[in-house]
């Protein structure tokens, strides 16, 4: 697993209070991890902070799974 994936999963576990083994790459934030739309806003802010990337609203709306987040960060980090 990539270093980015590890860090993303750690943020998800911390923010959503879910067990680490539930945070698979295919997991949907809303359907599988119990997040609501505000939790996703907060997660996106935490990803921006952690990785120093900017995630505009239109891109954030497309991030629905853990893998979506990892891919976006991998493709856009400086």
């Amino acid at each position, binding site marked *: 697993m990539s270093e980015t994936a590890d860090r993303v999963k750690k943020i998800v576990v911390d923010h959503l209070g879910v067990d680490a083994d539930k945070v698979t790459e295919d997991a949907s934030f809303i359907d599988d991890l119990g997040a609501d739309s505000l939790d996703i806003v907060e997660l996106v*802010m935490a990803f921006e902070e952690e990785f120093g990337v900017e995630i505009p609203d239109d891109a954030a709306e497309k991030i629905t799974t853990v893998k979506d987040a990892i891919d976006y960060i991998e493709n856009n980090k400086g």
Partner: protein
Amino acid sequence: MRRVVVTGLGLVTPLGGDVETSWKNILAGKSGAGPITRFDASDQKCQIACEVKPADHEYGFDPDKRVDHKVQRQVDPFIVYGIDAAGQAIEDAGLEDMSEEMKLRAGCSIGSGIGGLPGIESESLVLAERGPGRVSPHFVHGRLINLISGQVSIKYGLKGPNHAVVTACSTGAHSIGDAARMIKDGDADIMLAGGAEATICPIGVAGFAQARALNSSFNDRPTEASRPYDKDRDGFVMGEGAGVVVLEEYEHAKARGAKIYAEVVGYGLSGDAYHVTAPAPDGDGAYRSMQAALKKAGMEPGDIDYINAHGTSTMADTIELGAVKRLFGDDIGGASMSSTKSAIGHLLGGAGAVESIFCILAIRDQIVPPTLNLHNPDEGTEGVDLVPLEAKKREVNAVLNNSFGFGGTNASLIMKKI
């Protein structure tokens, strides 16, 4: 007429994360005061407070017991305290498994005097230093006063009235009184009622200190700072925590075989119409509030065994005492009156609820809690049993709880053994 009884209790205080620990420490004469640990208070005039202690403390509070990790991260501490105290009260009342029908008739009236001040302070700094894009999406609903009632209703599925009182330091008492009326009026059969506060943060302490309401000369002797009725008092000690009771319609409680602590028999309200922070010097607002509660209860002053005073350890103590003496006349000789703020500080919006619970426990255990640090009673205290320093065993059948708030808002509750 529908009658209202108390069937469950929940407390988070500077002397315990639950009812029995808090009460045991209150009766033992312990103080919850100490140097402020939440932030560096070295530049503050007042550097002490009664903080709720961490989970690993002898009488600490463990938020993980009843409040989801995610919720804890999103909301201010006053909401965490409120949710936990409400959960305790539900468990104590044996209402963990309510039917859908019961839930439709069960509501919440849990308020706060100020709400999420620490979060407002910290997010304001985020806004100023890092811009609007870094403000938490949970900022608003994590700080709003009615979000204890909101969170508790969601957690336990309570679909009846959802209400939150905001009357400064009278909040807890008004919350219980208003909720009792909702049950009497038939809006609900069960109400979770109470108050919570958590404002031990730099802006909270500075704000009350600048208003000349907080103590400032006891920074080296924190446990001696809260001394209601004592000559050397110089301002209140800020406390934090929550108190929530389960109120229930009497026949409803009897039908399910619930344990009944007491009946809420009197509720009085009044306004001072005098000053934003100082009570009317003649104590007339307090007098009318207590008088109204007695009238509702159909009782005489001589029927009251114990008064849990507002008694904040400020100049206002003697004003309340004057009002009590005026109302009770010679009957004051038969009552005991103490301020538990001497032990846990002033819980502001939580005070009236927490102190009502101490009143109920005084009825249960036939003992009245002490006024700590009362070594040199002030002028005007003669002839009143202020229960100095040590708890006192005595007959307790009916209790009066007073709460008075900034803005000149007064509430009195009378509860009685059933």
